């Protein structure tokens, strides 16, 4: 014990750690009937950490070439001890991370936490969700199986609709005119270098902002939060978050056990596309909407119009902290509150309808 004290003293003397300890021990999380929403950010972080760990493990054996990618994933799941588990957990954790990020985003949205002074936190969070989807999109191709190959072909094809820069963007994404081994190498680069770097950077900013500004309490819950004793961050909130993380771990174990991620069959670029090509579930609402649009609408290509609408919608969502002027008596605007529910209902509705086969 005395040795530890000494070490602490030595470190504190050099780096002035006392204020940090002071900050952490006094950090509290407000307690009210919607406190549960505060756990989603941490849960997303947990899944991200699982992704980093399992991703690094997969890197030990994965090979990013058209000739060897499928074989190396096959090698991982069939021959490497517990390779099936690592791969399955990586795939499931990716999906749960996106799910938990969505839950985090909507809970933040409905509590109006994006408003001043937390605009930047909202924006970095928005960008992080975009990056997470980028991780999903690029990682989906890496096993180089039939489904992922064709889903990537359809997915990348959409960027070609972008006015002016479409052709260039398509070439940039695919590393050529077609989805080939060059695309795989590129996506691998995005997946393990570009996106992790950007994510780490933005995540750092996002977390630092939260530490700096503390948890937001919605106006309607301020009374309640004042009355009730806040939760101390260390150790109470951390332990509570620990319970949630264990729940996340349990979910991963259960999913890996009962729904092991399939290997599929090796992609054959010359084969015709199999029926029922679908992207990952978090792109389904976009995918199905674009499919529903007529070929031409108001003299514009339907798909282009749809993509334009999604871009505009995304921009509105992004700019909510600026657009929502709030209510005179405090609190967030009703319009945006209703809009939030509409967006949530639309996304959830379309995703479930797609799974239920409504659009077939």
């Amino acid at each position: 014990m005395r040795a530890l004290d000494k070490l602490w003293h030595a470190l504190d003397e050099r780096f002035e750690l006392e204020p940090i300890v002071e900050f952490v021990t006094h950090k509290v999380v407000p307690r009210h009937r919607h406190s549960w929403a505060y756990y989603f950010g941490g849960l997303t972080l947990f899944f991200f950490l699982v992704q980093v760990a399992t991703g690094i493990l997969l890197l030990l054996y994965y090979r990013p070439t058209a000739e060897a990618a499928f074989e190396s994933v096959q090698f991982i799941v069939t021959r490497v001890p517990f390779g099936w588990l690592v791969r399955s957990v990586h795939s499931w954790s990716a999906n749960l991370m996106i799910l938990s990020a969505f839950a985090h985003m909507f809970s933040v949205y409905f509590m109006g936490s994006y408003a001043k002074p937390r605009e930047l936190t909202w924006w970095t969070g928005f960008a992080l969700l975009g990056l997470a989807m980028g991780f999903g999109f690029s990682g989906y191709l890496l096993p180089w199986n039939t489904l992922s190959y064709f889903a990537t072909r359809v997915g990348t094809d959409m960027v070609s609709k972008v006015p002016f820069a479409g052709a260039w963007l398509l070439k940039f994404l695919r590393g050529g005119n077609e989805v080939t081994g060059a695309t795989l190498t590129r996506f691998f680069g995005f997946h393990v270098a570009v996106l992790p770097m950007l994510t780490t950077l933005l995540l750092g900013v996002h977390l630092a902002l939260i530490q700096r500004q503390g948890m937001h309490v919605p106006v309607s819950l301020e009374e309640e939060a004042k009355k009730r004793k806040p939760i101390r961050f260390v150790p109470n909130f951390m332990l509570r978050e620990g319970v949630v993380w264990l729940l996340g771990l349990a979910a991963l174990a259960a999913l890996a056990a009962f729904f092991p991620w399939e290997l599929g069959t090796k992609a054959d670029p010359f084969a015709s596309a199999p029926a029922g090509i679908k992207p990952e579930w978090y792109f389904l609402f976009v995918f199905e909407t674009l499919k529903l649009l007529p070929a031409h609408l108001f003299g514009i290509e339907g798909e282009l119009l749809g993509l334009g609408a999604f871009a505009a919608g995304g921009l509105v969502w992004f700019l909510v902290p600026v657009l929502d002027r709030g209510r005179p008596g405090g609190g967030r605007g009703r319009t945006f509150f209703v809009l939030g529910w509409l967006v949530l209902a639309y996304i959830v509705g379309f995703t479930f309808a797609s799974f239920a086969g409504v659009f077939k």
Partner: protein
Amino acid sequence: MRCSLAVATLAIGLAAAARAAAPAAPAAPVRAAADSCLSCHATLKDERLRKPAELATSDIHHAQGITCAGCHGGDPAATDSSAAMDPRKGFVGVFAPRAIPEMCGSCHSNAAYMLRYAPNIPTDQLSQYRTSKHGLALAKGATDVAVCSSCHGAHGVRPPSDARSPVYPTRVVETCARCHADVALMNRYGIKGNEVEEYKKSVHYAALMEKNDLSAPTCKSCHGAHGATPPGVDSVANVCGTCHVSQLEKFDQSPHKDAFAALQQPACEACHSNHAIGQPQDSWIGVADKQVCGACHSAGDAGATAATAISGALASTVAAEASVGARVARVKRAGMLMDAADVKLEDAHQAYIMATVEIHTAIPARVEKQTATALADTSAADKDAAAAEKEIRYRRTGLFVSLVVIAIAMVTLAFKVRSMER
């Protein structure tokens, strides 16, 4: 000038002499310095007369230095048309059909002559032709039968190995069809005229046109080219057996061999038909409607019993291959290593293919020997799949145990938090 003209005249004189003496003493190739046939005919307005001159430049004979006069006679050195096409100089304008085989044969049957140009092509075409249905009809005075030029072309003859030749494997069927698809013409000779149409439904035609397998049989592979004649009842098997060696060998061991011979039935054709030879199906075996054995056998006789046994053995193998194959594919998709099972399935399929060859013996025991091997292989693959499924269940159990551990940790932690906050 005069000198060269003299040399040319001399050369042509020699050539003419040689032609007159052919095939006894064929001449060396003659390259005429000036060929008035070509230069004059190329300018003619009448297409019928101009075309031969145009086609001649792509003709194998022309390329080898055999001029128009080589076949038509006359004097290519003469500038005056009546002198050039003087019948006294051996000129023939349009050959009568009967004259064509003899004219071509005057060189092509001469082994010593052909040796100088194409040492590897046979020289028996004319003698084969004389035995062919075409040649026999021609000898009887028919003029609407095929002669050399009907298939090879008259002017612009290309070697059969040239993909543009009308007798190149992928084009020869259409060439035969020019006459053989003409029902009115064929009926005059007691032929149905639907043979080419039928052939186009066959696996052979599919192999030729879709897989571009130039070794796939065309009309001439079974009927002969120059000696074109339908193979007789007793020689059908030999014709098919030139490629389908194993099937013929098995057929020869079967009780059908003698029975078919006694009944004057063609061997292969009885079940496989002649022109429209389709992909054989296991479902053909039996005595029911649209099954081939029913032509001779009826329910209850020894043949029908054997057919039932054979088709049963094949059906059980096909079913086993399909179900085990699906099971193996399922566990493979789930991420299990199934190489060993794949190998066994391949072995099983090979045994099945061997069984389909053994069908030709018509002996159930011979077929069953192969299908038993196939079934042993599929059941071995099935065992592998079962083991893999067991491994999947084992993993599931392991994960379930850790799930319980995680749940306990979670619950105790929750209790801990509660007790701390009380």
